[in-house]
């Protein structure tokens, strides 16, 4: 495939010219666009390429429909990130351009890998290059190591999974992995760590806020897509009911927990980080429902849930990339961390950053006709169909997942409104640091447009993915523009028609607004005095009511001048941290303390044990 070769060529060129940052990023953009084309081509006619290394051990790369979809989504986002980095990268060192090219290249191989070796090598390169990318910002060692620790945890689980297969079949190719339960379990666990599913999400808050924003976007979207891709792959290989149930439960919990934490968060990047947890939870849950439906022979529901998962991926990827790019722009311009200090992005920083935040925020809050609305509607529709399950246990699980996810959608809307309302639409006059921003704005605007267009033309995506039976035309909506959630029809929605009607009404409203010139505009009435700077309602005020009502969960403590609340799941890791510190202290004090006698005793003991084992 020509585009595939081009992509690799562009990335290598990009790495080679790292000394010229702009050129390097331009190659990255070209490479990412090529990768997108690889996805489009691979979706229609996939390809596969295999080499024999020695003695029946073969390596293979290729693109099938599943990897093609992920390639398209991931590399559309990568294109925007790379475009954004042309100007944004000027604030950072030359190694960043090199590492971004490397990350993109290795991630291409992750999506195209057909065997365990290629996959693991690409996976490790991605992890390590991202580790160094996080380090681009000073004082971020702790956060970078946390990221690495979780990534390597995931790698270890994957290695175990692959080792199981190799022991079983003596082959590294993925085709051989069908119907191996143990492999599926370990691989599933490994991949959900990459998806930041609760309780493996604790690193993201701090790491996202420390990492440069383009890197945070990579961490949030393409990297979690790797995990999602892995879970999709595992489920396509092993249709285990147990794993599907685990997926639904963990997914729903994760969505709920992420939304719950985003409702209380007041840090600019931590809030979207928790939103990532929530969205990945929803993806996992809908995939689990799809698997359960397939097992119960509810094929229409299974197809619809599967489509829902893909839509959720598209929605999360596009919206979250837009959000991180806009946040990064604002954050670098204003040099602040708290949402409260970042007021007035739309007015003060730039229209495109403010609009990007607004559109992505609206998408996460499920406002029609944006893509977030379509995907969350689909998710709720598929969960509402839990009554179709024959098995009462499934019915119960899916219903409770539906309750948790509905709560999560509400809470996340609450959190996102806080983020957008206080930062993008808020009011505050700040000192602004000028940064070169042509490509930054371009990338933001492109992504905003994609969020809107993908929502309005979501029926085209359904059509492209080949799920024609979920498209219909009733109630005056022309044939393919109406999306249905089941056959016979259960629920319908048409963002396309909504957009037309809304646009029509908006036109007249605007006409009315601009024709009325007699309107008197005054500042709000605040008791007759001018509003002072320290009298603004802040984000803490906004979220305190939730913190207070849910004080049992958040461990809210009201202090004299501030409120303390935190993510309780951190406690598990704090406990583990203390345990390991004590353990290593014990080891270094009593066993590995440099005493020669101990080492000799250890060598002899091992020698004897080995002797016994091999003799037997």
């Amino acid at each position, binding site marked *: 495939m020509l585009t595939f070769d081009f992509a690799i060529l562009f990335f290598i060129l990009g790495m080679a010219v790292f000394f010229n940052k702009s050129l390097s990023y331009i190659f990255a953009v070209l490479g990412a666009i090529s990768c997108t084309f690889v996805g489009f081509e691979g979706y229609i006619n996939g390809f596969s390429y295999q080499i024999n290394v020695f003695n029946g051990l073969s390596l293979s790369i290729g693109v099938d429909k599943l990897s093609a979809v992920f390639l398209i989504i991931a590399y559309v986002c990568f294109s925007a990130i790379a475009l954004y980095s042309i100007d944004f990268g000027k604030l950072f060192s030359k190694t960043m351009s090199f590492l971004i090219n490397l990350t993109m290249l290795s991630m291409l191989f992750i999506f195209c890998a057909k065997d365990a070796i290629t996959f693991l090598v690409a996976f490790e390169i991605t992890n390590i290059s991202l580790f160094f990318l996080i380090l681009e910002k000073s004082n971020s060692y702790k956060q970078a190591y946390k990221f690495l620790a979780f990534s390597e945890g995931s790698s270890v689980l994957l290695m175990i999974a692959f080792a199981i297969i190799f022991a079983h079949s003596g082959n590294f190719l993925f085709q051989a992995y069908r119907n191996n339960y143990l492999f599926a379990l370990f691989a599933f666990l490994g991949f959900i760590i990459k998806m930041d599913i609760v309780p493996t999400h604790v690193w993201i808050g701090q790491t996202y806020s420390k990492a440069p924003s383009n890197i945070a976007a990579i961490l949030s979207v393409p990297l979690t897509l790797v995990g999602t891709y892995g879970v999709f792959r595992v489920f396509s290989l092993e249709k285990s009911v147990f794993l599907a149930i685990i997926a639904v439960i963990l997914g729903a919990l994760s969505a709920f927990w992420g939304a719950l934490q985003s409702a209380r968060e007041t840090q600019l990047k931590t809030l979207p980080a928790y939103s990532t947890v929530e969205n990945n939870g929803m993806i996992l849950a809908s995939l689990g429902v799809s698997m359960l439906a397939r097992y119960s022979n509810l094929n229409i529901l299974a197809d619809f849930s599967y489509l829902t998962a893909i839509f959720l991926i598209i929605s999360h990827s596009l919206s979250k990339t837009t959000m991180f790019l806009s946040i990064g722009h604002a954050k670098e311009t204003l040099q602040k961390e708290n949402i409260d200090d970042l007021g007035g992005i739309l007015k003060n920083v730039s229209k495109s950053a403010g609009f990007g935040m607004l559109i992505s925020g609206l998408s996460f809050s499920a406002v029609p006709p944006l893509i977030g609305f379509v995907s969350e509607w689909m998710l709720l529709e598929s969960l509402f169909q839990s009554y179709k399950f024959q098995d009462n246990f499934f019915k119960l699980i899916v219903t409770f997942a539906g309750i948790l996810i509905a709560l999560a959608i509400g809470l996340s809307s609450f959190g996102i409104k806080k983020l957008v309302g206080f930062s993008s639409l808020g009011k505050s006059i700040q000192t602004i640091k000028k940064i070169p921003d042509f490509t930054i704005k371009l990338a933001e605007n492109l992504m905003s447009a994609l969020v809107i267009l993908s929502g309005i033309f979501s029926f085209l995506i359904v059509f492209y993915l080949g799920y024609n039976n979920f498209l219909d035309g009733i109630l005056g909506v022309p044939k393919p523009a109406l999306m249905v959630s089941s056959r016979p029809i259960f629920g319908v929605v048409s963002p396309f028609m909504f957009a037309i009607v809304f646009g029509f009404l908006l036109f007249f409203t605007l006409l009315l607004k601009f024709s009325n010139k007699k309107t008197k505009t005054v500042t709000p*009435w605040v008791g*007759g*005095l001018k509003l002072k700077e320290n009298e603004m309602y802040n984000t803490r005020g906004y979220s305190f009511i939730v913190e207070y009502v849910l004080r049992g969960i958040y461990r809210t403590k009201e202090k004299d001048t501030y409120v303390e609340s935190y993510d309780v799941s951190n406690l598990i890791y704090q406990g583990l941290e203390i345990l390991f510190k004590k353990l290593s202290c014990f080891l270094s004090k009593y066993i590995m303390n440099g005493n020669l006698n101990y080492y000799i005793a250890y060598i002899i003991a091992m020698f004897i044990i080995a002797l016994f084992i091999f003799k037997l």
Partner: protein
Amino acid sequence: MFLWPIYGLSKKYSKKFEFKTNNSKTVFKKSLHVFFIDGGSDVELLLEFYSLLSPKYNLHAYGIFFTNTPRHADVLVILSRPTQKMLPIIQEAISQMPSPYGVMLIENSNIGLYFEKLNLKNVVAHLKNVSEPTGILKKLIEIAQGGLIC
């Protein structure tokens, strides 16, 4: 058993107070939204305004309503001559009112700034030594019926 609505209706408070207006037919045509601002007085005028809410006067039947912000008001009532510190607040309130608007002045004591020296625009009434609800109500109804000519 003692029921509020029955108890309330049996009292017929609003019937006890007969209030004659010049032209009762136009009473319901125009409603008047009133925002009152305390100029920094002793509380006499405030208490009188508060007692205007008594069901006896049946204020809403004459189309008179109190609002909580000058932005919704037709008439701004300044109760008593203002203190120096209240002056900017009164000016801000007037600047926030949608036109056409009117300003009604009521004074009951000889403490505070002189209304005449404030150069307030659109003064539709200036009551001196009239601090009782009936007097105030009469003036408000006059303003409501006459319409605001500003």
